[in-house]
């Protein structure tokens, strides 16, 4: 079973990204869980969401305390939230940032595990003309976890977006472009 914890800010779509990841993994035949941890909901407040992905039915119904992967949708969270808490030694952290891996590693007090970065906000601004980094982050985490191939991901997301954005079809294409670029641009290890 793979366990993933998402850190984002209210309104950035971390919850949506976790649900889209659940969707994608579901479509490869896996058992999935996707759930947010609801706090006092407000725009900009730190929020957490979770994914479990498994080959067998998932019965456990608690939050995730020792994730295999952590996804940080907003790098300003690195200052206030202990994003590494419980992260497995052989796990990895993925961060949306324009900073170098070296400077992120310093910020994480010399964390020795795997760090991946992607400038998802820039990708989002390029294609969507706004900061909705979640689809780019989704693409990057799919690549890192190797849940499915790039081709599968693209096919899947197109289906999901057609459903999700039935009333806003104009955002489907830019989101697909964001996914393609994020898949190619994520760096680290």
């Amino acid at each position, binding site marked *: 079973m793979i366990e993933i914890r998402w850190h984002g800010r209210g309104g950035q779509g971390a919850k949506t990204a976790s649900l889209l990841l659940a969707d994608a993994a579901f479509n490869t035949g896996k058992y999935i869980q996707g*759930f*947010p941890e609801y706090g006092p909901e407000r725009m900009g407040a730190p929020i957490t969401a979770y994914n479990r992905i498994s080959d067998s039915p998932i*019965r456990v*119904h608690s*939050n995730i305390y020792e994730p295999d992967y952590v996804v940080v949708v907003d790098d300003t969270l690195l200052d206030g939230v202990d994003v590494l808490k419980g992260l497995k030694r052989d796990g990895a952290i993925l961060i949306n940032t324009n900073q170098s891996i070296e400077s992120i590693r310093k910020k994480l007090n010399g964390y020795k595990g795997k760090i991946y970065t992607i400038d998802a906000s820039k990708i989002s601004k390029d294609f969507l003309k706004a900061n909705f980094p979640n689809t780019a982050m989704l693409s990057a985490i799919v690549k890192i976890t190797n849940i499915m191939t790039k081709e599968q991901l693209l096919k899947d997301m197109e289906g999901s977006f057609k459903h999700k954005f039935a009333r806003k079809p104009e955002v489907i294409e830019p989101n697909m472009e964001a996914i393609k670029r994020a898949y190619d641009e994520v760096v680290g290890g």
Partner: protein
Amino acid sequence: MAIRERLSGNEAVATAMKQINPDTVAAYPITPSTEVPQYFSNFVANGSVSTEFIAVESEHSAMSACIGAAAAGGRVMSATSSQGLALMFEMLYIASGLRLPITLICGNRALSAPLNIHNDHSDSMGARDSGFIQLYCENNQEAYDNTIMAVKIAERAKLPVMVCYDGFITSHSVENIMLMENEEVKNFVGEYKPDQYLLDYNNPISIGPLDMQKDYFKHRYELASAMKDAKKIIKEVSEEFYKITGRKYDLYEKYMMDDAEIAIIALNSTAGTIKDTIDNLREKGIKAGLLKPRMFRPLPWNEIALELKNLKALAIMDKCDSINGYAAPLFTEITSAMYSSQVYVPTINYIYGLGGTDTTVKDIEKIYSKLQEISKTYRITKITNYLGIDEEEVK
């Protein structure tokens, strides 16, 4: 053919309601069950159901409208949580007292104060003596299945049914689920033909007039008998459901109970976490088990008690508190049932997870470890425990 899907608990329940296509749904939104009437009103708007949807001004009115529609002869559903269920309270007793087969979805949530939107069972447990059948669900699949079965159980038992599942943990978590075909659900619930109803102008009746002392007592006895007899009806309906879906439901579920020396009794989503814990403990040779009641009303008191007779120690977990200076409802009722069935097992109560406090495999391991200690010494130092609360510190 079953349909493989992934849905949240609320989506699953709303889908069941769509497939049931009831005559009337009256509801008022409240977290965390808001999405149920929200999705359902979409189905009404886009014509995928023919239901009369009544957007009322409160939960008291929601249950009142359900009572009116059910008395008129309709198949009726609603959904609520927490303060909403509390506001319905007066009308819950009227729904059951009038023997109206209403299906009420309850996305379990804590009660104020302090204000809290997260999951515990204070709301439905508060309504435990209201004359509603209560079905409890571990996950989205059980919430979906029990919603479909509830309609049939209600109509056959002539009692209202509450389908309870954990707010957020189940209501907002997306998980795998197997759905039935629309036709299968339609055929399973069938057409509702009440024996007597207000709109049957050939056989006029009145509903809800005053009862004098003896008549009242007799009617309340009939209500109590109907609840007692509902056990058999729930078994029958579950058997019919099993034949179509292959999914087996009984009065309670046993997990690794056959040779268990220590066991936990718990409702809803925590049962899944307990099953994972049991698998870990069994690998170490610890004979741990779980009994998960599917229903609290009617209480399968004798059946459950007899399942426990070979245990060396038992913990009963309550996700609510009776605030009675003693212990919580699942514990007091099951230990009472054990006494009445002459089953004597050292038993302790854990009140846990209030206001949505997360309950993990590690928490459950602590309970089993306490049970191992009791199974060796047969000594209980404390009956009622508050899981994860440092009682000294709180004082």
